[in-house]
Structure formats: structure tokens, C-alpha cells
């Protein structure tokens, strides 16, 4: 059975920073813009966590906005 397409995500590498992850996930965007996009699509990391923005190895980090 074919799976329906879902929202794309990556998981952080060990000790990966937001800068590095944004550059890896959205290489076609300027770095600041890529970081802003990642923040805006991942409030579970950048709003709901203490400390805010702490990337964890187990995280799902979306690299596109919601698709539905």
C-alpha cells in the first residue's frame, strides 16, 4: 500500500545548532530566513520548551509548513 504524503521533517544530529539544521534542511534560503522558517513551523520546540529552542535528539523538526 502506498502511504499518503505527509509533512516533511528532519531530526537533529548530535549537538546540531539551529543554524546548522536550517542550513541543512533549507539550503536554498539565506540562513536567517531559513532559521526563521524553522522557528515558525516548530513552535513545539521554539515556544513550548524550556529552555526555548533547545534542540533534542528525538525531535521532529518540520521543514515545511502544514500541508493540510
Amino acid at each position, binding site marked *: 500500500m502506498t*502511504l499518503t504524503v*505527509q509533512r516533511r521533517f528532519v531530526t537533529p544530529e548530535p549537538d546540531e545548532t539551529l543554524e546548522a539544521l536550517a542550513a541543512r534542511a533549507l539550503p536554498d534560503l539565506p540562513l536567517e530566513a531559513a532559521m526563521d522558517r524553522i522557528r515558525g513551523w516548530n513552535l513545539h520546540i521554539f515556544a513550548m520548551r524550556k529552555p526555548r529552542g533547545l534542540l533534542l*535528539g528525538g525531535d521532529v523538526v*518540520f521543514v515545511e509548513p502544514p500541508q493540510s
Partner: protein
Amino acid sequence: MHDLVIRNARVVDGTGAPAYAGEVAVKDGRIVAVGPRVEGPARAEMDAGGKAVAPGFIDPHTHFDVQLLWDGAAKPSLEHGVTSIIPGNCSLSLAPLRAADRKAVVGMFQQIEELPPEAFTIAFEWTWEDWEGYRRALEKGLAINVAPLVGHSVIRVWVMGADANQRAARPDEIAAMQDVLRQCLQAGAIGLSTSFVDVDENARPVPSRFAQFAELDALCAVLGEFGRMLQIVPEFYDADITIARIDQLAELSLKHGIPTTYSPVFDNRQTPASVDRILGRSAEQFARGARVWPQMQTRPIDISFSLLRPSLFFARLPRWVRVLRQPLEARIASLTDPETVARMVEDAGPDGGERLMGRLVVRGGGEAPAHLAGKTLKEIADARGQSCALALIEVSLEHGLDVAFLSANGGHDNTDRIGPLLARPDVHIGAGDGGAHLASFATYGDTGYLFSEFVRGTGALTLEQAVAKITGETAAIWGLKDRGLLKPGQAADIVVFDPDRIGRGEERPIFDMPGDGMRYTRDSVGVEAVLVNGELAWTPAGYTDAKAGRICEMAG
């Protein structure tokens, strides 16, 4: 000669097959005969009075780990007909755990279970570090069967110490975790739990959340050696993240040949598409051969708050928001300022807050005023001759703001919608959290609620379906050996209940935790007898002295 024969029974055998008038015979803790008529004499007989006689219910998501060490019945679970429980969920278990690491793990337990500190200092003696030792401590005095998971966070602490909630594991540490997990499974743990949500007492993510996917994959390889379950807590508040977790679980299930389960799944009217998307993704993954079981709770979600901490219950009221987000001292000053209060009352609407707040119920327990417990704010406001908004403020001020209000049925409350979801063959009924959230709400009676709301109420499930969902199907999903069915050779875990009455009692506070700690509970309704491994463990007269509970064995 049989030890016991239950006669005049409406046999609901846990397979989903039609109920029938019959009898059940028990010998040496096992069922030896079930049918319309059981032959042979018995040392004792029980007349079921035509009531339902079913396998004991199995609760797959509990946090009774600590309570079991002083209360082997996991009260009040057993009196609701639950004869087997699965603790150790959400990445937390009490073993393996070195003495030096206890403080850190206790903090996590206190955060999730809301147990008082005395629960860890006076209620039991720490006699173990490894799983084998924990099992020995746990087995003493069990009245209920226990199938414990081992927690990923605890395994991480065992191997990595203080680094467990700081960083990714090195390859040698992952290998060590595999060894520890293998030892735990060999010593009686039934699977592994992990969490992507939980935090410790300082709101820092629990250790399991620092693991790379490769670490979880390595641990699942060990689960695969035994064919055992992985339980996770996904970011349940977001459908997209939950779907991503489902896909990860499916990958692990297919690769290692293991069952997986995620909990909780619930339905909120504010996010109406979420539950269908989540269950749809599980169905797609089932169709590929993955075993990814969503656990859905039966009970609705109630919102609980006091003015001690800002609650978003008031998010639509600007003046309330302004006051409540102030530091405590300033908040109290504002709440005692007549002008501010007048504006807050005005803010609550022309009806003085009756529509928004009138049905709030004052909760008992803690510092709450006993004479107000259980009353609606409307009743209290009328008695005081005040608006609901003013009554809420003044009652709170009179008790140092430590008055808890309950807004019932705040979510997962559309029974017409939820019944068919619970009935789906690919939905696992669970996520009850028994033994957790003690000071927030009662996590007991979900089984009774299943029958009262979804069998007798909406009719979404037949009696037989509902019984099968929480007995035979649960045992099969988890691989529990000889549990969940009324058939010869199975353990004699049996519940006798009245299908026309079974339900759950009103939520009420009790002070039975160590150090007179408070928790909310619910009494059973309509349950008439509970047998565990052939021993009568509970009747409406109370708990017996039987301590027949066991650590569950696994099939295969």
C-alpha cells in the same frame, strides 16, 4: 473437584462472541471449564445472579509503579474490575536505578504522578537497583497482576548518569543500554517505554528525549529479540508531529518485528480533523504490516484551575488576563482592588460571567472549603447574592486563592463521535493514566465509563465488543500469556458485573497517599466481584486479604 464454580452467569468470554447463559469453573488459579453447564462438584459456588461474568479487565497505560510498593491492589483499579495493569509507561520505571540516581528519577515521578514526597521516603524501602531486585520487591503482596514496562529514561540514567538529560549517547553507551534492556526483559519486563513529551520537576525534558533515533532503533533491535512492545508518548497536541511519530514507529515495527503503541489519542472540538488524520495514518501503516496501536481513552477531559496559577481558561477575558499574569503578590493586590474587580466582572459579560463560569464546580481536597466542594459556581453565587465572576474572585481570595475549579467535559467529550472511534478494530482502548495526575483529576473508572456511555448510552459497542476491547484484544496486542479470555487454561482473572449498572462514581478527594497526601478517586459502580488468579480479591463489601496477583508472563 473444582475450587469454585460460578453459576447462573451471563458469560462474556472476551473474544467478542455472543454472551450466553452458562457457568465457569476454576481450579488452582486457572479456568478449567466454561460452558452452558459445568460438570463436577466444587468446593465453593458463586451465584452470579444472571449478571455478566467476563475476563478481568486489563489496563494498558498506568503509572502505579510507586503505589504498588505499599498497595498491591493498585486501589481503586481492582474494584473497577481491572485485574492486570501495565505500569512503567512514558519512559519511567523504578528500575534499573542506582541509589545515587534515585533523587533525579523521583523528581520525574513526582512531576508526572503528582505523588507527595513522603511516597518515596516513608512508604517503602528501596531494596533494589537492578530489575531482578525490583521484581522481588514488587512481587510481595500483589493483589493485582502486573506487567511492567522498563523506562527508556531510566535506562539512560543507569548508563549515562547525569549526562542522560544533557546529550546524545555514544556508540558504547548505546551498546550498554542494549545490554541493560536485555537483562530487564529476561527478568520480567514486558517491553520498553519512551517519551517525547514529558519533563522533570524543573520542566527540563526527560532523558529519553535526548536520544537520537538511532538509539531508539538499537533498543528496538533488542525488543525484536523478544518480540516485545515499544510504548511512546508522542506530541499528542499536534497531529502532524503525531503522524511523524507513527511513521517512526512503523519503521521500527517493520524492521524489528515488534508491536508498538502510542498514547494518548483524543478528540477535541477545536481540532476536529486531528483524530481522523492520526487514526488514518495508523491504518495506512497497519495495511503495510506495521503494528502501530493508537491508545484512546474513554473518559472526557476536564479542565482544572485555581487563581494561584494563570490559566488560559480566562484567555478571552482581557482584564482577567492582565491581572492573572501578574506575580502572585501583585495579583492578590489587584484582586482586592474594588475598581479592578469591577472591571473584571464587567469583562465577564453582561450576565456577570454566568454563561462562562456558572457551571464551574468547586473541587474538594487540599485547602478547598469543604462546605463548597461539589457545588457549582452559580449555586455559590446565588447563595452569596453575587455575580458568578465576583463569587469566583471572592471565594478564591477567602482561601488564599487555593480553590480549584473544574470545567467538566472540556475535551474528548462528544460521545457520538468517540464511540465509533473506540469501536474501530485498529484502536486500542487505554491511555487511562491510572496512578498519575493524582492531585489534578481521577484516572480511574474508565472501564465503567466505557460501558455506561458507549454500550448503554450511544450503543456504539455491544457488551461483547466492549469486553473484548479491554480483555482479549488487549492481551493479544501486548502478548500477555493466558490472560484476557474465559477459556480453559487461562488464568482465572474474572469480573462479575451488572451490565445495566456498571459505570463510575463521582470524582471525590481522598487522603490515602503517604503523609496523608490527597488524590482524586472514583468508586466503582455495578461491579459485584473481582477474582484474581482464582482468588476473590474484591466484593462490594471491600477488599479481601487475597494476595494472588502475579507478574504477568509473556506469550511466545
